[in-house]
């Protein structure tokens, strides 16, 4: 990191859109797992996601941006296709992150 | 340096008069200060205001302790506030009253000091139709102390200070009041 003599005066950030390089996905304890086959592309998850981590291509939800998703679970909570207990019918399911990461 | 202390009541225009006095002296390229002793501003409450006029720059920023001139704008203050406080034998006392200087001296029971009187209340009521005794008192003190400020400078300053705020009629009345007090002030 830069020393005090080289940091921008007044903590001004001069690089626009630099928040994308900040990988907030590291913070995640719960992971939204996306099941494309159950998705109806209603875009409610895309609207609600506070971190713009729902990736949409040609008006279709295609994936989750795990580099920035913090695992808040709002997408799965709001998803109209993810109510009830039957996991196989859901479009978004929150699962513990440790299932996907190797032990340190 | 000449130091002046004004005694008046809130609403009689003493603070304005003190400002006009300083302002006219500065107009004459002298050095001057006008410092009102602000308290709780309410009409009718006794107030003091201070002036300093000098040929040299003034660095003092405190109340006037030993005034050369004391101006009493309201005669009802004569026995309620210590008007002679800090004055010596040579001090000049200018009072708004219908009494003559010797009558006033007897009334106050004071020795020494030069006492001048002017019936500023009467002048104000006749010319301004209001009990604004400040301008007549300015006329009186500019007569009493030659070295202070000339009546012409005071006139000029009144025109500048009041010029756009009051009617020509009222401005003329103020100038007449100034002039009359200048002529009518009496010494012993």
């Amino acid at each position, binding site marked *: 990191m*830069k020393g005090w003599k080289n940091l921008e005066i007044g903590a001004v950030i001069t690089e626009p859109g630099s928040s994308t390089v900040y990988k907030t996905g590291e913070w995640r304890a719960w992971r939204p797992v996306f099941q494309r086959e159950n998705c109806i592309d209603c875009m409610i998850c895309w609207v609600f996601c506070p971190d713009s981590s729902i990736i949409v291509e040609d008006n279709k939800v295609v994936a989750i941006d795990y580099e920035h998703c913090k695992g808040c679970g709002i997408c799965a909570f709001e998803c109209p296709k993810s109510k009830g207990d039957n996991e196989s019918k859901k479009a978004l399911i929150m699962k513990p992150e440790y299932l996907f990461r190797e032990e340190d | 340096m000449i130091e002046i202390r004004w005694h008046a009541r809130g609403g009689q225009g003493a603070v304005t008069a003190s400002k006009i006095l300083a302002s006219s002296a*500065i107009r004459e390229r002298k050095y001057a*200060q006008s410092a009102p002793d602000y308290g709780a501003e309410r009409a009718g409450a006794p107030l003091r205001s201070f002036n300093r006029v000098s040929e040299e720059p003034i*660095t003092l*920023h*405190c109340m006037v302790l030993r005034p050369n001139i004391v101006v009493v704008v309201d005669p009802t203050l004569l026995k309620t506030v210590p008007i002679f406080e800090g004055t010596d034998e040579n001090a000049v006392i200018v009072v708004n009253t219908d009494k003559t200087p010797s009558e006033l001296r007897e009334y106050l029971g004071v020795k020494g000091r030069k006492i001048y009187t002017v019936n500023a209340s009467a002048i104000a009521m006749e010319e301004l139709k209001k009990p604004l005794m400040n301008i007549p008192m300015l006329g009186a003190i500019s007569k009493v102390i030659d070295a202070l400020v000339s009546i012409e400078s005071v006139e000029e300053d009144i025109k500048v200070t009041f010029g756009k705020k009051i009617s020509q009629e009222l401005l003329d009345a103020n100038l007449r009041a100034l002039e009359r007090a200048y002529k009518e002030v009496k010494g012993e």
Partner: protein
Amino acid sequence: MAVRLMTERKVVPYTGNMATAEALRQINPDVVAAYPITPQTEIMHFFANYVANGLVDTEFMTVESEHSALSAAVGAAAAGARAMTATAGPGLALMWEILGVASGMRLPIVIPVVNRALSAPINIHCDHSDMMGARDQGCIMLFSENAEEQYDNVIQAVRIAEDERVRLPVIIGMDGFIISHSIENVSLLTDDEVKKFVGKQTLTHSLLDIDNPVTHGPIAMADSYMEFKRQQREAMMNAYKVIREAGEEFAELKGKKYEHIETYKTEDAEYILIVMGSAAGTAKYTVDGLREKGEKVGLIKVRTFRPFPYYDVVDVIDASNVKAIGVMDRAETFGGYSGPLFEEVCTSLYTRGKIYPITGIVYGLGGRDCNLNHIEEAFDVVKRKAAGMDVPPVTYLNLRV
């Protein structure tokens, strides 16, 4: 475009508030945001008149509190505007949080302050508690002795604040009522002279520069916050030089020199008082009177309180024949050894290895008059200290017992 009003230099009968408003008019800031508080209110009355009459180009914002006034100035300054506000006493206290924001964001906001006591009890009159309460919020602080100094300091403050080596808010204090509401001789510069002296604001990283988008006021966690604070310290150290340069340049323009401190008959002085604000004028007069009686007394007036001119103060004391020093504070540091100015002077001396008898004097709180007799009393305290007599850490002047 603002109309030129003052085409030749003049000496005018102005109060401190009138002089400040005149300076603001001549500076013609882009944005002024203010909330009224006695005894500052008048400044904005006069300035609002200038705005209404089209004499300035300023966007004048009347906001709902001092916290908002400075916040608005912060926003404007970050957008690249030359922004100003003015306040007094409790108003400065309410601004306190945003003072740190303004200095931390390195925004050159100029803030004339009319020094007023803090509540409680409620008091509208002068003391320095307001600025002393804000003394560690990263703003440059100047104290004026009279109305003309306030006018001159406000004009210089624009240059100091906006210098790229500094880029910090500047607070310029004048004593409430004693200066703000008293008429004195004030020598004014012409509009063109002021315009030329303050120059153009050249801000980099404007929020309105859409070709180069920036973020102002981001979060900085433990990994970088300290680096930004170190930068502020550097800026303050630079300000020491820049204030001096601005003072020298101002002297070329007006003939009156402004330095960090002003000394008065200290060369051979045995007893020295150190003081800020309007009481310095009264003290000069007292020094003259005591000198006529053959007493070797002198005075140091501190103009720059932040950055504190520790070298200047010690150099002057060192060059005199001082036997004891009295530091006069118009503010209390309850529970501290003595007042804030006292502590600065002591630190300056001790760190240079200079140990003199020194004592603290508190005066003029809440507008209590400080006249010649009280300054003489202060010198008496200093003499007692020099004679090795027992003097308390703080002596209150003009106190009823």
